[in-house]
């Protein structure tokens, strides 16, 4: 196969296997040998023509090119897509809880708390739902993104502010510390102690007696 035909085929398969649009610049990264953008653009035009009468169209959107089913097929394809997305996985819910209660946090913070590495899919689901977003970068090496919950999150959960999130009451604290080792139970007592001052001032009607 001629070199140029091979390049065209690689472009085509890259676009077919990507769920996101790909920019011309990114398409260039497919090849080790520098392939200039004008060549790529030309080949994209050819691919567009090749697919003209087929079921998929190559179209250009803001962030690049993608294959998209012709609209005639939508009614059929919608029958396959389930009406309601399945429930969020345990992982997604835990990550949301960590962001809600510990914000602002980095991906690394979340991984440290959960003890497992985090698939980027998990965060994506929450960002797509507009429940979390990136509010800055932490000034440490790598400048990781800081995640926090959004107003939208509060709306969807019918909360006026984060302080309305349920909290651990003393019986649960006791229950939790029973399941853990003693030193942990102790340190949690300390934590409650150190918070009392603020508790009294800020939410005087909601004082939580320190567990035990």
């Amino acid at each position: 196969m001629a070199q140029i035909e091979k390049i065209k085929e690689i472009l085509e398969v890259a676009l077919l296997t990507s769920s996101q649009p790909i920019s011309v610049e990114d398409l260039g990264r497919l090849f080790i040998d520098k392939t200039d953008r004008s060549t790529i653009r030309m080949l994209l035009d050819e691919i567009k023509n090749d697919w003209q009468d087929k079921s998929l169209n190559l179209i250009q959107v803001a962030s690049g090119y993608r294959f998209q089913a012709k609209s005639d097929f939508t009614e059929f394809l919608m029958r396959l897509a389930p009406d309601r997305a399945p429930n969020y996985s345990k992982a997604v819910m835990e990550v949301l809880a960590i962001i809600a209660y510990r914000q602002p946090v980095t991906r690394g913070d979340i991984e440290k708390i959960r003890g497992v590495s985090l698939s980027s899919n998990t965060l994506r689901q929450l960002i797509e739902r507009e429940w979390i977003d990136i509010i800055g970068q932490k000034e440490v090496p790598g400048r990781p993104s800081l995640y926090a919950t959004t107003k939208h999150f509060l709306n969807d959960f019918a909360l006026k502010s984060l302080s309305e999130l349920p909290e651990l009451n003393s019986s649960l604290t006791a229950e939790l510390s029973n399941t853990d080792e003693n030193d942990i139970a102790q340190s949690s007592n300390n934590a409650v102690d150190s918070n009392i001052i603020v508790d009294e001032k800020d939410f005087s009607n909601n004082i939580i007696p320190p567990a035990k």
Partner: protein
Amino acid sequence: MTDNIKNLAKVYGEEIELLPQDLYIPPDALEVYLDSFEGPLDLLIYLIRKNNIDILDIPMANLTNQYINYVEKMQVIKFELAADYLLMSAMLIEIKSRMLLPKPILEDDEDDPRAELVKKLIEYELMKDASENLKNMPQVGKNIMIAQSYFERVTQIEYPDVSVDELFDAWKNVLRRVKQFEQHQISRSELSVREHMTIILRKLNEKDLLEFSSFFDTDKEPIPKLVVCFLAILELTKEGLIKINQQSSSSPIYLQLGEI
């Protein structure tokens, strides 16, 4: 005690010189190998295959010596590794001594004290080998790419419903697992501090520089809220997320994102 061990590890270079000759792992590689064994069985298989020992007729004295020597070295360098390994040492010594006992003529191999160990070793090696095969198989997400072109959905995607209770349950789950419970003990006050941290960061994202006083509406906000806001600023500063600047002692104080 621990100090002692650490010190030994520090003179690690010299330690290596003392390695017995029948330990077949090249001394320089010891450190590399240290983490590469998944456990005592893994180490035994390594020794057996490295020495071309017939696994069905293991020379117990030889293998036990090598194993114990190795574990001793590991203990010196990485103490906490030893527990599982020590148990195996004991087992090897027991098998070795049982083989040394004078015994009636064996009718069949069933009484061979090595039998159980050998089966364990082979079973583990089978699985080790299988895991290599799995690792090398093409996998979705790694080197299998699936066609997933786009199609426009007519109706809006419906998302799963989640209640506050479910969110709280997830949080309790996290807390149950977390070792450093202390850090994740949450009270309302801490939460509202965290909420203010987010609010302040959002404001600073919109405007690079904001006057310290602009965060405090002393007329409208109740005092507890001002306190919480102040705590949030302190916390953000502590975590290096924002910077507090003042040109001279009487000039206004500014907050900015922790860049530069």
